[in-house]
Every structure is written in C-alpha cells, then in structure tokens.
C-alpha cells in the first residue's frame, strides 16, 4: 500500500483505537517521535499498552501521555530514571502495569514479530526473576528461555529523512528501536525531519524500506 504523506501529526495519528498496543521508538530523547506522541495525546485514544525502552522522561512526550492516564500498561526495559517521576508516581500508586523486559529481549521480541517468528529460545535472563514461569530448554548444555514476539497495532517512530515513497534513513544513535519497530506493527507512522524527492536517497543507505511504512509526517518545527 502506498505511504500516506501527512500534512500534520494529527492526521498521521488519526484512527488509533482505544486499547491499542503502541510501539514507541527512541532511547531517552534520541529518536523519540515527540510530535507524534503529542498528537496522540490530542487524539484521545486510551487504555493503551505502550512498548518503549523507557517509560517517559520529564513532563513531555511519553511522560505527558502517561500523566493523562491514557496508558494501561508499559512494556519497557528501563522505567526508572532520574527524570521518570510521572511513571514512578503512577506505578507506586498502582495505576499502571509494568512488564520489565531485558533490553535485548525487547528488541528481539519486536524483531520476531516483524519477521514472522512464532517464539524463540534466548539465554538472556535464564535463572533470574524475569524468566520465572517461562518455558526453558537445555541446548548444548546451556539454558534458554522461550520468548514470544511483541507485535504492535501501531508504531510511532522518529527518523531523519523519508523519501516520498516512505523509505527511511536515520541519524547516528537516534536509529535505535526505529528499524525493528517499523517491521512489527499493523500501522507504522514515522516522524521525520525532512521529506525528500523519491530517488534522492541512496538506495544502498536506506535502512527502513518503504514496504514497512504507512504514514509519514515532517516535523512541524522544520516544515
């Protein structure tokens, strides 16, 4: 399906339903699709499950979505940070569910969802609290834990540039979760700094091919 180039972030997030699982890219603020998250706050979908490396920083972006009481559950690797007071308060008062996942398992479970893998055996976390209750198997003398994919209804990601077909390139460590999340959601929405003419991205350098991308919006502050 052809990518939709959206004029505004509000158009890009239209139709996200209550109860959706939303994959949110970014590691700290690098690669965080802040304008899409702000638009999701205005859009109003609630009872969301958010999958992201962190659980919000400061009072903006993901933290603001949490503060609005719109998120039922967070699946992340590292909620506790010096500036995660919004999440901390919700968690301590029992108003949000948390599933802590080792960071590599988070990435690989998302990758598996996008790659059509039913589940996979992974050594990370074997014998720890985070593997409790999970199936294990000995392979060549090592214990592996069965891990299931994490699929999104929606992915919100930040990229550096898109062409008009929706091919994406990233910049430096802002790439982080973007490329795997782009493969693993029904509707993939990318916020980019610049939309360039088709043909002007080096095909050898495209990181996320257009097949994965449904909607693209250029950041308003740069438009």
């Amino acid at each position, binding site marked *: 399906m052809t990518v939709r180039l959206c004029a505004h972030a509000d158009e890009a997030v239209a139709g996200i339903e209550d109860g959706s699982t939303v994959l949110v890219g970014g590691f700290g603020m690098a690669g965080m699709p802040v304008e899409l998250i702000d638009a999701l706050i205005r859009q109003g979908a609630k009872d969301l499950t958010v999958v992201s*490396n962190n659980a919000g920083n400061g009072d903006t972006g993901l933290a603001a979505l949490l503060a609005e009481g719109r998120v039922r559950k967070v699946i992340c690797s590292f909620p506790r940070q010096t500036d995660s007071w919004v999440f901390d308060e919700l968690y301590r008062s029992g108003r949000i569910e948390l599933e802590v996942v080792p960071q*590599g398992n988070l990435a690989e479970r998302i990758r598996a969802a996008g790659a059509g893998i039913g589940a996979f055996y992974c050594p990370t976390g074997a014998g720890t609290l985070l593997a409790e209750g999970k199936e294990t198997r000995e392979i060549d003398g090592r214990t592996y834990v069965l891990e299931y994919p994490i699929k999104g209804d929606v992915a919100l990601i930040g990229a550096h540039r898109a062409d008009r077909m929706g091919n994406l390139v990233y910049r430096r460590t802002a790439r*982080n979760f973007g490329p795997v999340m782009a493969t693993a959601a029904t509707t993939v929405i990318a916020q980019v700094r610049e939309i360039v003419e088709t043909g002007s991205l080096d095909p050898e350098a495209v990181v996320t091919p257009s097949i994965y991308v449904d909607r693209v919006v250029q950041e308003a502050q740069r438009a």
Partner: protein
Amino acid sequence: MNANTVNATSTANATSTANAAIGAGAPLGKHEMAALVARDIPRGAFVNLGIGQPTLVADHLPADSGVVLHTENGMLNMGPAAKEGEIDPDLTNAGKVPVTELPGAAYFHHADSFAMMRGGHLDICVLGAFQVSGRGDLANWHTGAPDAIPAVGGAMDLAIGAKKVFVMMTLFAKDGSPKLVPECTYPLTGLGCVDRVYTDLAVFDVTPEGVKATATFGVTVEELAERLEVPLLTA
C-alpha cells in the same frame, strides 16, 4: 580477537598489575580501579563499558589502544563525552549522555546491537554490581526492596553475552557487609557469568576451582579471607 587471546593477555597484565600494586598500602579509589581495568584490556578489543563507574575505564585507555567501545544503543567506536559545542541530541551513550564518534564508527539498530552482544562478539564488558557470588553469579539490576521499581536495561544481555565479564565494585557495602558472597541475596542478573572482580581492596579471578585474589591493596589475602565468607584459593 578470540577468547584465548583475551585470556592470555589479561592474565599477563593482571600479574604485572599485582606486582606494581604490592606495597601500595591503601585501598584504591574509583579512578585507580578504572586504571587497573584499563590495563587489563587487550589492544584492539571490542568492549562495552556499563553505566556508572565502568564508564571511567575509557579515560584510562591509552590513546593508541585500538580498543573499540560498543554502546548498546547502537554504535561501535564511540568517542569521549561531547564537550560544549559538540553536543548532538542524536548521539548519546547508554546512559543518555551526549558522546562523540571516532573515525571508523558504525551505527546499527537495537536488535543488531544486542545480537552482537548475545552472539558473543564482544570481547569484554565491564559492569558494576551489588553482589558477585563465588560461582560468578552477578546481581546488579534490582535491590529486591518491595517499593523499588525494577529496571534492567541491558544488564542481563551484557552479563550473558560478552566473552569476558569484568565487575568493578567496592568489596564491602556501606554497612560493612561483603559484596563478594557465597550466594547472592539480591535478585540475579546472570548465573556464573563473572570472570574477574576489581575492587578497592583486591582483584579476584573467578575460576572453576574457586575464587583467587590476584592482587591486594593495603591488606593481605589472609586478612581478606577472614572478612569474606567466600573461600579464597591460596596459590
């Protein structure tokens, strides 16, 4: 690099470290510990430095070490922290601190970054710890306190992924209890994964035969043995 090379070089370095440190007569500060770790990292190794004290190791690597630093958020050949005027919000380390890139740097996404780690391609990772057991079990992600918010980040992936896992920690907690213990009481990060422990009072190798102090600072092995419940191998 292969594991044997790391092992051989590290052992040689550890011996020279021990010789140099004998008679130093005082517990090490965190920079001295970081310098010790840096001296044991072979030239050209691919290394991940954990958040916190392990980050200091980078400051003690010789400029020509050829060591390639990996950061879990998707980069090899990470450079030093960014100075004023060099800060780029798109370029941070695992602690979200702005950093720089060195010539030969490469970027990759998170699944690749952790595949690289889990797949045994990193020669060494250096991590902090709450506790290490005599079998090399590591506890460094969660205090287990009922009101603590659990946060694991990449700790479990690093613990089981790198060819060699070095830990940097003080040997005793603030309340005086040893952090090198027969069994970890804090929730585990990984089982049997730690190879060497650098502390302010001694360096320990965790071997299949048991724990061996390879260097001590201001104390004797006998004095340490009295304060630790973990049996120490004697030469």
